[in-house]
């Protein structure tokens, strides 16, 4: 089966790869581009460990074909921290011990960032429903929810 040449933008950088049309965006990120920060926990869109944004819309990269990324903009966990340092969510996850094994963490951070773009001042319930697509088996979510709300508060203060 012939592969398709895909040109896309990942974390602001132009990239190209050859994709079998059956390969998911997650496969392409991990196996062709070496961006292994996005994880596969289920392959069926049920766990959120592969969360990325595609043209700023939060998606499971396991439910996007690699060839669909042509001409689009993909942002992954690897692009979350910038040269100035960690994103407030990343700092707060460490500070609040919001990770144990850390496997769900990249997807949760990407999803939480997208959530706070949509809703900078979420209630606890809004955080919980907003992150319901990201399974965490270690923490019981308590510290994750606290970290997201604390990061949101800090980000609001910075924006003010």
């Amino acid at each position, binding site marked *: 089966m012939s592969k398709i040449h895909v040109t896309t933008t990942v974390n602001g950088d132009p990239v190209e790869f050859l994709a079998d049309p059956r390969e998911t965006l997650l496969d392409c990120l991990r196996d062709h581009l070496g961006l292994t920060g996005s994880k596969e926990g289920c392959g069926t869109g049920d766990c959120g460990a592969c969360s990325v944004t595609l043209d700023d819309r*939060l998606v499971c990269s396991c439910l996007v074909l690699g060839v669909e990324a042509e001409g689009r903009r993909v942002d992954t966990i690897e692009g979350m921290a910038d040269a100035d340092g960690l994103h407030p969510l990343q700092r707060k996850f460490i500070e609040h011990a919001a990770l144990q094994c850390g496997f769900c963490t990249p997807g949760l951070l990407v999803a939480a960032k997208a959530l706070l773009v949509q809703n900078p001042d979420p209630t606890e319930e809004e955080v919980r429903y907003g992150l319901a*697509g990201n399974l965490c088996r270690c923490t019981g979510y308590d510290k994750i929810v606290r970290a997201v709300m604390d990061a949101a508060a800090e980000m609001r203060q910075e924006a003010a």
Partner: protein
Amino acid sequence: MRYHTPSSFEDAARLAAQAQGLTRFLAGGTDVLVQMRAGMVQPDDLIDLKKIPGVGDITRTDEGGWRIGVAVPGAALSAHDALRAEWPGVVEGMDLVGSVQIQGRATLTGNLCNGSPAADSVPGLVAAGATVEITGPEGTRTAPVAEIPAGPGKTSLQAGEVISAILLPPRGAHGGDAYLRFIPRTEMDIAVVGCAVNLRLSGDTVAEAQVALGAVAPVIRLVPEAAEAIIGTTLDEAALQALDAAARAACSPIDDKRGTVAFRTEVAGVLARRAALIAYGRAKGDTA
């Protein structure tokens, strides 16, 4: 597998008609990719509809209803204030499909064409009297949404036919709709039972009603007996009990990993009552 990105529905239909092996259309992809991944489906041709102009648009029709493109993701549907104000039940049905991530991809059309009796967005469309525009080798036709499902995993679409838009009728005055589903968790599950109610009031009295049930029969369908139970009433307790009974009587569910016959039947009545009350409130002007 060949991957196609046609630029018109006519091209898409032609590709599908000419294809020799297994063909799948790609709208949001949240079902097709899962089936491919599980090895359940290995398409020879995958036809991506997202490059067709207009598939991401929600537009007002000349009649005052809505035309919803086949690639409009749930997130865009929920973000459309005017549509949500008129058809909250339709929008909340789609909004209940999966997580935020799924909402970034999943579409009404895909949910419909997947043919699941438990599809959350379909009862709302059926109760609303929505239709679909179908493009095929013979041209374009329309059909009621209710006629598309043909049993689990099946649709009534012919080979080479592709849905090119979903059409909602004008809302009109004093109308309201609602969709409720039951799932074991609070998110991320497939409906064990789903119920949509669409009604129109004349004063305090229900003048018109449609009730659609999901996950309690091989296909999602209207239950005219349930609608009749509330038409002409003010949705008093007796009417609600009659609705509950009619909804239960319409159930022919199965026992499976998601629920039992007894549970589905019982809860169908409960949801019908609860959804009717919400739709009634909305018809009276509640915005919740």
